[in-house]
């Protein structure tokens, strides 16, 4: 049967080529569009991780819900043993402390409500690879009274590197403290909202102003993003009983999950459209081919072939077409993806962001396999109705069409 199917597939090279072209185009389309969407997920995720949240954050239980209202209630007073435990976990690249606060920033003329973070500058610099500097430089460990402000803050207060600002905040004891700080740089993340309120100061300066030796969160940076869930699980086990909350970057950035869900839904629609296009193209081609072969099927049945054999033969022919077309499509899809990635696609800033990026096409083995499988299944499905129609024609009528 396979020999007969193979010969039938290649009896009309032109038509077979056209059908294969439709399958190839569909598979390439699935691989490239899927890789493009996957790249968006990866880039967005990495951007979130390396400009804001890190891979994992460890904080006191309840901090994420009530930390903004009562930050002092959720301080980690002695973070060093916890940091040591986390740092000893395989796959962890770095561990750094942050203390969050809110207050007012004054430029001598006006005030702006801000959300601040006291950070360890050198460690944050290593993590914050997706933090773009609009002006000036990043904070350094030596910047005792330095401040790095978000792009929106700089614009609102007309700040630039070298300017002096006053930070006003409430200390743990309830007093209002002030700190004079020198602007060292203006940064921009992918989130415009974050940049409109964010400032970063050295951890020691923030602790001094807040009057506490404690911290709010321990930020964990990993060697590989894909290990996040595994390491988070390990940390939960190690830190059990200490009333600490271990949160991954997906949990911390709710909008990421929503964005992924939105794009995945769009990609599902795209996938369905491509599947439909392949189905219609192949069905059209297979229909034409089978229609011409109705007398042949009549002859086969006259010679003793059962209808089921003919349906199976057509199915095998479609599978041969599907496997060949999808295999070529998969190879071509990988090559096209690599080519596009080599050049890169300059993308405009996404909504709520000022930062554009260069998109690539991720070659995801699962997506390549899925595209191959979709190509094969769609082609096989396309042939079945036509084959069933062909064998429903009475033998004598099928033979009459040869005359």
């Amino acid at each position, binding site marked *: *049967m396979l020999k*007969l199917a193979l*010969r*039938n597939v290649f*009896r009309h090279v032109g038509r077979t080529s056209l059908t294969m072209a439709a399958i190839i185009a569909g598979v390439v389309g699935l691989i490239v569009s899927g890789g493009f969407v996957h790249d968006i997920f990866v880039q967005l995720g990495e951007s979130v991780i390396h400009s804001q949240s890190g891979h994992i954050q460890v904080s006191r239980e309840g901090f994420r819900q009530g930390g903004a209202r009562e930050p002092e209630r959720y301080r980690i007073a002695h973070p060093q043993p916890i940091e040591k435990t986390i740092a000893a976990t395989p796959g962890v690249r770095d561990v750094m402390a942050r203390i969050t606060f809110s207050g007012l920033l004054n430029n001598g003329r006006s005030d702006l409500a801000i959300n601040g973070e006291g950070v360890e500058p050198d460690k944050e610099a290593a993590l914050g690879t997706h933090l773009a500097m609009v002006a000036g430089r990043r904070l350094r460990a030596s910047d005792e009274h330095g401040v790095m402000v978000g792009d929106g803050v700089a614009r609102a207060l007309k700040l630039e590197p070298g300017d002096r600002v006053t930070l006003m905040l409430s200390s743990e004891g309830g007093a209002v403290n002030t700190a004079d700080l020198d602007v060292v740089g203006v940064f921009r993340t992918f989130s415009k909202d974050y940049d409109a309120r964010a400032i970063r100061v050295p951890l020691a300066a923030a602790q001094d102003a807040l009057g506490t030796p404690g911290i709010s969160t321990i930020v964990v940076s990993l060697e590989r993003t894909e290990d996040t869930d595994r390491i988070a699980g390990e940390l939960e086990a190690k830190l059990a009983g200490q009333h600490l909350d271990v949160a991954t970057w997906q949990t911390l950035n709710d909008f990421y999950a929503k964005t992924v869900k939105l794009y995945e839904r769009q990609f599902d629609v795209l996938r369905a459209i491509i599947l439909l296009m392949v189905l219609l193209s192949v069905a059209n081609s297979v229909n034409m081919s089978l229609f011409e072969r109705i*007398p*042949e099927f*009549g*002859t*086969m*049945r*006259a*010679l*003793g*072939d*059962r*209808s*089921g*054999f003919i349906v199976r033969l057509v199915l095998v022919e479609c599978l041969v077409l599907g496997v060949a077309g999808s295999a070529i499509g998969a190879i071509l899809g990988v090559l096209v993806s690599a080519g596009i990635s080599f050049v890169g696609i300059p993308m405009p800033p996404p909504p709520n962001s000022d930062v554009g990026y260069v998109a690539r096409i991720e070659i995801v083995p699962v997506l390549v396999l899925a595209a191959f499988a979709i190509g094969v299944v769609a082609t096989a499905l396309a042939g079945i109705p036509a084959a069933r129609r062909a064998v429903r024609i*009475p*033998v*004598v009528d099928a*033979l009459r069409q*040869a*005359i």
Partner: protein
Amino acid sequence: MTGEPARAGRPTRAPDADPRLAVSVQGVSKEYALGEERVVALANVSLNVDRGVFLALAGPSGSGKSTLLNMIGCIDTPTRGRIVINGRDVSGRTPDELAALRARTIGFVFQTFNLFPVLTAYENVEYPLQHLPEIGRRERRERVLHFLDVVGLADYARHRPNQLSGGQRQRVAIARALVAHPQLVLADEPTANLDHRTGRNILRLMRRINRATKVTFIFSTHDPQVIRMADRRVDLEDGEIVRLGVRARKEWSYAFERAAEPPAFADGETQPGR
């Protein structure tokens, strides 16, 4: 694919089956609906065909000869009446049961040759043997080569149909019809697409095989020169048998009666009528 029919579906031997008969057509009618009109292609035809005859179904276009041939070949079903092939009543059989019966009992030769274009002459001849799993690879090869030799195409085994002339294609079709050792070969206008000389040669070949193997041949034709080569003839007009002939030397002697019972030829070999 196996050509073996299900045990339950094996056509049963007709209780009144005459073992001398290859085919018995009993009161068969075929009617078609053409729009709101009913067309009668065959009207209550009865015909008994003895084993080993070389029988021509003759008549003009639309006389019902192809319809009768299709009924005998079990590729069409009668509106009324029954058909007994090789002693077995084929009425009420499923399409798959009829396919299995055709595979083992009947060989077909078509007007348009109907060879599979993607297969070589050898493979075309071999094709019906896929339904006979009991035939091993060696016997299969021997049979195919034998019948290609019988039809004079041993040297063309590797040729595809498009590399053969019309006459050669029909020879391949004849070899294909014979390879499964059927009891009956049906040929619908086997010479219609051939020139006269090639057509005569094809008929001579079929007749030679008929005499050598005693396989029953029934073919339809409207060509008087082709009819002349048969040793029995059944003439049809408007779906009815109008004349029966037996060739004695070069002349036909006709027996024709419109009687309720099938009339008999003098030698009893073929007994047509309605």
